[in-house]
């Protein structure tokens, strides 16, 4: 009984503090104003993005220069295949097979980020695949995990430079 009353008081104090936090967050930024020419700046930047995307989609899929590096549909940060120094003859090689369970949603998203792709890339893929952005991240992560390229060359999707 005494413990219950103590817990109630502690909860009340915690709630009071959280209400105070709400007020303080609001007060901290209540007078913040965006710059007056923001609309013009954003419109100009938006138009630039439209032009860039159009230019990217016009480039043949064979190769594309993005951010100073040639992008040809595979992650720049993905490890390149390495030929073994000596032929492997005895040890069994475990490779993913189509029958294996697909990566979970969250793990697939982590794989997507591990390849240095970002939210913007997922947005473009979501448009292409007609899914929401989260689904696009997961789908892309599963493809990458499977060693398959993303349809980047056509759309300008590329991982960020490390």
């Amino acid at each position, binding site marked *: 009984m005494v413990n219950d009353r103590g817990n109630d008081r*502690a909860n009340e*104090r*915690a709630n009071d*503090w*959280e209400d105070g*936090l*709400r007020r*303080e*967050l*609001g*007060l*901290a*930024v*209540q*007078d*913040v*104003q*965006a*710059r007056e020419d*923001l*609309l013009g*700046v*954003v*419109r100009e*930047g*938006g*138009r*630039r*993005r*439209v032009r860039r*995307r159009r230019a990217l989609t016009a480039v043949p899929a064979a190769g594309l220069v993005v951010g100073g590096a040639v992008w040809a549909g595979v992650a720049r940060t993905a490890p390149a295949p390495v030929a073994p120094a000596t032929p492997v003859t005895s040890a069994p090689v475990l490779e993913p097979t189509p029958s294996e369970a697909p990566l979970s949603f*969250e793990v697939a*998203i982590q794989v997507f*980020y*591990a390849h*240095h792709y*970002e*939210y*913007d890339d997922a*947005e473009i893929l979501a448009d292409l695949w007609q899914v929401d952005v*989260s689904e696009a*991240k997961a789908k892309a992560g599963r493809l990458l995990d499977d060693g398959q390229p993303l349809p980047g060359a056509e759309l300008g999707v590329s991982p*960020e430079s*490390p």
Partner: protein
Amino acid sequence: MPGVGGSFEEFVSTGSDRLLGLAVLLTGDRGHAEDLLQDVLERMYVKWRRIDDPHAYARTALARKVTDRWRSRARRPREVGLEDWHDHAVSDGAGQRADRSRVVAALRELPPRQRAVIVLRYFEDWSEEQIADQLDVSRGTVKSQASKGLANLRELMGVEVPW
């Protein structure tokens, strides 16, 4: 229907102050907040006709940008560059006050994901489910990040822990 009948111009004119406030809290820095907001608005300009609810879209995009940065930075260091126009941006005083505010200073010390969860929960009044959906994390992650974030904030702000 974009913005349920509203124009992009109207959306920016009427909503950018509040969005900038959110961005300041999410980043803990006025300059980064302006970069972030500009980036999100430019993307919205490109796809305006396909955005049903611009207010929700902008908030989600701002929060995701911050947490995506966290995800990327967890693997490699990355500096957030300032756009050139910050060099000649006019200070409105309020931005500097926000930067100096006790709660913003404390938020700045939190890891970005904890900061995002706290801001969305207590500034935007989003539910835990909504935060989990929008940030691509589990509800349990939101709960734990909120709990750690609140504890850290209390300590940073010198508030006595109530239990």
